[in-house]
């Protein structure tokens, strides 16, 4: 079953064709990596899927439902969660609140219950808090619950963003360059975390990544983009040998 199918997706900004007619699909449970040089249009694909941009043309099917024109806040409810390339945490909120907010978005009591403190309020809150704590524990952030998110070291902020995304209980997780700005040791840790995430949550994952070690390691399939187009697709082994891919990466880090 296809979890995600992108068909002929296009998006331009002024003269720039950021995404120029791209198609690919992701099977349920699969992990797909998107790689490509800077400015290839990878993040734009994510922004299109998650409703932050409206496509000029093309379809985005999530379990056969076209989601191309939904506003961003509707997508988590359907089961799509994302992280951002340059980290978007709620900086002044605590670690705990960052995760809790995502848990509570998914459902809960209404305004009157909140005002008059109904049973519904207490039950929902305590369940949500428990769930948030579990996620925080899973991502090794226990003990830091009450720190402001902006005061965490970079690597932990990345983990917190993942925890927040998973709090939404998504079916499809979109991760944008989780390894950016990390050293090789931190990358190792990240690979481990991602593998654990895959094992623990039944997830379909699309991951954008520059760090080849990471993306080749965890992906079942790789999509290579350049200048808004897909130039190759296949297993990590196939892609590594692809001529076009090597060309596109000429001068960049070796594969």
């Amino acid at each position, binding site marked *: 079953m296809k979890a995600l199918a992108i068909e002929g997706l296009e998006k331009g*900004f002024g003269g720039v064709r950021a995404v120029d007619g791209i198609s690919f699909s992701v099977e349920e449970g699969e992990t797909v990596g998107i790689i490509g040089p800077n400015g290839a249009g990878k993040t734009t694909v994510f*922004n299109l899927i998650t409703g*932050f*941009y409206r496509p000029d043309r093309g379809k985005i099917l999530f379990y056969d439902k076209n989601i191309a024109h939904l506003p961003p806040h509707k997508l988590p409810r359907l089961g799509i969660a994302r992280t951002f390339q340059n980290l978007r945490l709620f900086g002044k909120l605590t670690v705990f609140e960052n995760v809790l907010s995502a848990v509570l978005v998914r459902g809960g009591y209404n305004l009157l219950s909140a005002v008059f403190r109904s049973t519904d309020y207490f039950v929902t809150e305590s369940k949500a808090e428990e769930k948030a704590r579990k996620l925080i524990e899973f991502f090794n952030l226990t003990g830091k619950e009450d720190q402001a998110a902006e005061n965490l070291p970079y690597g932990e902020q990345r983990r917190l963003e993942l925890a927040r995304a998973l709090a939404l209980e998504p079916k499809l997780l979109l991760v944008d360059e989780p390894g950016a700005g990390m050293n090789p040791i931190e990358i190792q840790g990240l690979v481990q975390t991602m593998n654990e995430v895959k094992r623990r949550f039944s997830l379909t994952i699309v991951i954008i990544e520059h760090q080849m070690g990471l993306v080749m390691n965890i992906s079942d399939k790789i999509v290579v983009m350049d200048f808004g187009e897909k130039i190759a697709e296949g297993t990590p082994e196939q892609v590594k040998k692809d001529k076009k891919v090597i060309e596109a990466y000429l001068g960049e880090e070796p594969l």
Partner: protein
Amino acid sequence: METISYLLQQCVNGLQLGAVYALIALGYTMVYGVLRLINFAHGDIFMLGAFIAYYLISKFDIPIYLVFAITMVCTAAAGYIIEKVAYKPLRNAPRISLLITAVGVSLFLEYFLSLKFLFTANYIGFPRPFEVQVYDLSLFTVTNIQLIIFAVTAVSLVLLFLLIYKTKYGKAMRAVSYDQEVAALMGINIDATISLTFIVGAALAGVGGILYSIAYPQINVFMGIMPGIKSFIAAVLGGIGIIHGAVLGGLVIGMSEVFVSGFLSSTFRDGVIFIILFLVLLLKPSGIFGKRIEKV
């Protein structure tokens, strides 16, 4: 025939007011360009210009061009000082802090200058440096005041455009507006450029203050509030940060105001301007000449 001539007359009157708004709007738009700040105190610089000219004309017997020159120097100095004292320390603060500071500076100028031993809070008659003359052009009339306003505005605009598009200082201003970090990397002196922007904007507001007072010869420390807000709206209408947008916006706002007073009622003059603001913000927040930008 009569309606056409009435219409034309209103146009001339609208242009007169619009020209002054355009001069003030330029300062708003330029400062917004380099600092992303709505300089609330800008309307008060305009008021300051009117008062300085008032003292120059009533206390000293000097030719009118000197009145303009001295006033411009004084308001430019005021603009420079305000930026250095109040805004510069907040260069890295959140934008709202800067905005609140600007509101504070504006209130301070108004209430400080309204003290008894300064300008007081009363309306003061502005001494016109010359007699009013009306020229009848059969379809409509023009006064020498209007001609002077048009001429001075036109000259100021030409000089401003030369400065911005033909000198390296103007190039620096445009670069800082476009991207402050990149401009700094290119070796542009950001602080000096911001100062220059304030100086030029305040000088133009000073000119606006004189012209406005010649046309509507009653001055008061609070006189800058409404023209200030309206000129800012003009800048938004034209597309904030865009020089020619401010000029067009000023003219449109001036015209609308005169037309509403002429055809509806002067009570709703200010209301209509704010309705224009809401419409712009609703339909095209980037203004007439602005480009739409997407987020993320």
